[in-house]
């Protein structure tokens, strides 16, 4: 059968994978890093709008289309926690806010959801990062967190 070096390597491999695995478990639980949530489809999400729940909590309903996002400018105060609900009115688009690790897709017939905090003022670019036709490179929007001060 396998020689003793191989057995040793297999053991180390197993150990390494278990370590990887528990690290992921740790970040998903403790640091609340989660992937796109899954919500059953409902037409109500396809109305672009920003809703203020209270001073620190906002809901953004973003609708992507060839080749703009609606709403295209989202104004929120610093420290706000935002629920993003993202869908598409035509093809598949991307919805990426690199600085906040928001990384979702806008899919026709699907609702992507994630929650993030914007602790600092600034302009955060939303980029479409899923090929969506010949105007794909024009597709960008912004989250403006109290900047410049109104």
């Amino acid at each position, binding site marked *: 059968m396998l020689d003793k070096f191989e057995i040793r390597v297999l053991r180390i491999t197993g150990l390494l994978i278990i370590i990887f695995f528990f690290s992921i478990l740790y970040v998903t639980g403790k640091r609340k890093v989660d992937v796109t949530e899954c919500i059953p489809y409902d037409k109500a999400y396809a109305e672009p709008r920003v809703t203020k729940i209270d001073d620190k909590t906002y809901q953004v309903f973003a609708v992507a289309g060839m080749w703009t996002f609606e709403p295209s400018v989202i104004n929120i105060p610093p420290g706000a926690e935002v629920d993003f609900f993202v869908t598409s009115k035509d093809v598949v688009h991307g919805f990426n806010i690199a600085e906040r690790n928001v990384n979702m897709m806008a899919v026709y*017939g699907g609702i992507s959801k994630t929650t993030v905090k914007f602790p600092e003022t600034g302009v955060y670019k939303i980029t479409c*990062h899923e090929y969506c036709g010949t105007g794909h490179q024009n597709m960008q929007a912004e989250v403006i967190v109290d900047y410049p001060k109104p």
Partner: protein
Amino acid sequence: MNVSRSLRNVIIIELFVPITLLILGIYHGLMQVVYRAGVIHQSSAVKLDYYQGLTLHGVINAIVLTTFFAVSFGHATIFFYLKKEPNKKASWISLGLMVVGTLMAAWAILAGKASVLYTFYPPLKGHPLFYLGTALLIVGSWIPLFDWLVLYRSWKKENPGKKVPLAVLGTLVNFIVWFVCTLAVAYEVLVLLLPWAMGWTPTVNVTLARTLFWFFGHALVYFWLLPAYIMFYTMLPKVAGGKLYSDLAGRIALFLFLLLSVPVGVHHQFSDPNISSTTKWLSTVLTFAVAVPSFITAFTLSASLEYAGRQRGAKGLLGWFGKLPYLDSNRYLFGYMIAGLILFIFGGFTGIVNSSYALNNVVHNTSWLPGHFHMTVAGPVFLAMIAMSLHLIATLRGRKIFLPKVNVIVPYLWMIGVLIFSFGLMWGGLMGEPRRTNLGMTYLNPQNELYHPQWVPSTMLALSGGFIMFLAGMLYFVVFFGTFFRKKTETAGLDLPVSEAYHDEKMVPLFNGFKPWIIVMVVIILIAYVPALVDVLSNSGPGAPPHLPHNPMPGI
């Protein structure tokens, strides 16, 4: 070994067609880095649009080259090790279907009617001939499997108690995986996309189509990789001057790939809605299991290379690393394979990032992704394929290698290019640089209001690496076509390097047949994909009408 005229021609055509198309594929690779770095601020150059070029690049390099190569290499290994010739008619029909399918798809892309990228995500719509062409290419590649299985069975009957040669096992594992995974994409193309692209059905369920695509899409990368693995296990130790450390380890790795290649496709959909996080978790767990055969391979190959180095007189703990035939032009296969393996170390690490449930969220759909997969598919896979194409063409036609000194440096030049190029893309990806985007039009055009200056250094780095890759590619073409059209000076025939095993373990029946493995494979697939499909079918909203890539209004 003597080859019949018919088989010889099948193999030669199956190598010549994709390598010729590859000229177009690599040219578009160069064009993409040029656009992305903002050197050109246009939508098209030389009448080819950026996204059309990207589609050509993906389809030719990732689908056409790899499929043609896998079939021709399959014919070669089966014939060489079983000493039985594949059925003449079947292999010509398979070749014919693949060529016709490729031409159909190529026409649709070149006519600008199918700029939907090789992943053809609906509801973007390509020309029906694009879908039909890809389907024919795939069906053509199925045919040899059934033929080889007949040869394999009769070989087993004639050789009871003997181990099935490792290369044959690898080829059959690869094509069984391929057959199973392509069933999903065949269903997607024939049942969902074609009728919809013809206007017979009004809408398509987008996430269902994506799920079917990725059922195929991840196994596809193993279909690319396994021919390279076969070469690493059965040829690399020999050309390095040593032996394969363990034959059984190779078998275990291959069967683990059979079990785990298909069921992990959901890890490409961590950012999709309509699939629950539990299903995504399951996919992460299974994906981590695929690391096991990779680690086994890493160990077995390093041990084999260490043995080879010591046979060549190396001393000390790591001295063997310096004693390998890196620049020996008679052993050029070694250079191609080792350069690929060095790239693969980085490809593997970055792959673990992609498949991690949480980390994926940082890199999904950014240019990190092409950074990662050029270190895998444009690394070990591509280098092994072009090396073996050259070897097969030279030996089957009895030609000496043209410019052997140039040939030995090609893989190292390519490797350096890929390292720089991929580093640029990955760095950009971490800063949010999107993939599949004509950056030169907007984000990297200083005249445009969307200008993103922070992506300048990363795209410049990718440009310089891409340029080096392009150069290496061109040198390879000179060697390949130079060899092809040279005068015949050697005796023609099929010859593959054969590694002996250092630990040649006893035959274990479990590792000498497919049945139990296929059953377990099906069970794991059901465990992984039933929940995914239930999620998709119960959470999706209305289906989507088709959209042409240049028009925001639905229509065909």
